[in-house]
């Protein structure tokens, strides 16, 4: 009853406000082909999948810990920005630049970070989601590597707000593209770094573990097969999946134990995973990622 009452009032209020602001009209016009044409996608299902995919910044932290050096050449140059003239490319590269920003932040490269912030702002504005980017705050956080926690907080919050907003506009496919672009860039950086450090087992394992994330991303893409661009990208991701099919993640469950220390339940995880991945697997994945990414950033 509560919901019905609110629903009726919301309906009355919205149907009474016939006058649209000029920028709103421009925005509605700009929805173009990015508006979903297929059947409605369950917001809860999409959110559940989106919510379980880790931030690319988590991977970038591993890269720094692995002792690898900052390498600007492996990032997507901000000079490519003018090439992105469809909302499909804009959304993907907004994700790409987001990961690159996180990478520059972790390595404390402020000048590079500023370039990425500017490109992020441009793409966000063009996608009509610029209002969710408090560029001054992101700039302050991203140019101080001690603020990683705050940067993670603000980017996560932003993503949640953007996702909710895009879903309300039936443009949730852009949320998926944002996330996919970010993940592919993190994969690209990790693979390039791993290729230079072939003996680093942790990097190799990280690449292998991404099989789980890829499966989730591909699951998301199944909801958007009526979108020609997403269907094409889905085919590319399927090529990547075939390479990942050669990798085994073996899970062994063993009951955990726990103790309370200073009011915190400290768990001892006795389960394990082992990942069967060879140097050849890494090289194959690197090449496929590179090929997909080249299409995206060009």
């Amino acid at each position, binding site marked *: 009853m509560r919901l019905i*009452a609110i629903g*009726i009032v919301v309906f009355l209020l919205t149907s009474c406000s016939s006058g649209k602001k000029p920028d709103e009209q421009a925005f509605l016009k700009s929805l173009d082909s990015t508006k979903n044409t297929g059947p409605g996608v369950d917001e809860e299902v999409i959110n*559940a999948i989106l919510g379980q*995919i880790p931030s690319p910044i988590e991977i970038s932290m591993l890269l720094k810990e692995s002792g690898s050096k900052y390498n600007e050449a492996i990032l997507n140059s901000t000079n490519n920005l003018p090439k992105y003239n469809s909302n499909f490319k804009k959304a993907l590269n907004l994700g790409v630049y987001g990961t690159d920003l996180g990478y520059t932040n972790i390595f404390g490269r402020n000048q590079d970070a500023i370039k990425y912030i500017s490109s992020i702002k441009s793409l966000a504005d063009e996608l009509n989601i610029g209002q969710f980017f408090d560029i001054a705050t992101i700039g302050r956080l991203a140019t101080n590597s001690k603020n990683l926690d705050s940067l993670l*907080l603000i980017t*996560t919050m932003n993503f949640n707000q953007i996702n909710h907003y895009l879903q309300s506009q039936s443009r949730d496919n852009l949320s998926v593209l944002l996330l996919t672009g970010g993940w592919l860039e993190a994969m690209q950086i990790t693979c390039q770094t791993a290729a230079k450090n072939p003996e680093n087992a942790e990097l190799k394992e990280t690449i292998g573990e991404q099989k*789980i994330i890829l499966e*989730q991303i591909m699951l998301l893409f199944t909801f958007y097969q009526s979108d020609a661009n997403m269907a094409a990208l889905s085919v590319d991701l399927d090529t990547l999946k075939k390479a990942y099919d050669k990798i085994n993640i073996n899970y062994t469950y063993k009951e955990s134990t726990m103790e309370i220390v200073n009011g915190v339940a400290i768990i001892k995880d006795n389960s394990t*995973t082992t990942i069967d991945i060879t140097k050849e697997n890494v090289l194959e994945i690197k090449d496929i990622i590179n090929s997909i990414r080249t299409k995206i950033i060009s």
Partner: protein
Amino acid sequence: MKNITFVFLFILTAAANSIELSDQGCDSDNLANACIPKLSSGFNFLKSYKVNGEAKDKVEYSYVFTKGTQYMINLCPNGATADGVVVSLFDKERNKVASSKINGQFISAIAYPCNATGIYYIQYTFDEPSSHCAGSALGFKR
């Protein structure tokens, strides 16, 4: 006309009451935000979760945990203590790997040094009917 006015006023009153009830109910959004700074030092924020069990017996989220990373799940209930709200962690096979209720004691934080990469389910349940509202935050450190 009188009837239409009456119906409209009725709807507005019902809606106002509903909104008021909702405000007095579970503000899990604010609780989730307030939970973020309560993550222990050294942990980087990852996610905040709204835990509103007003109309359900459990609330569940999932996240991919990575081997070699330590995670912390904080619980911030709508009250002074964590009593009544339980957060449990399940692995991809639905084996319980952690719980904030240990020997009948309610704990407000779980630290989980992950040894097995995979999808984990973070599930919130409610032991007492009066405790169905909370916020929660997930953090990590390497």
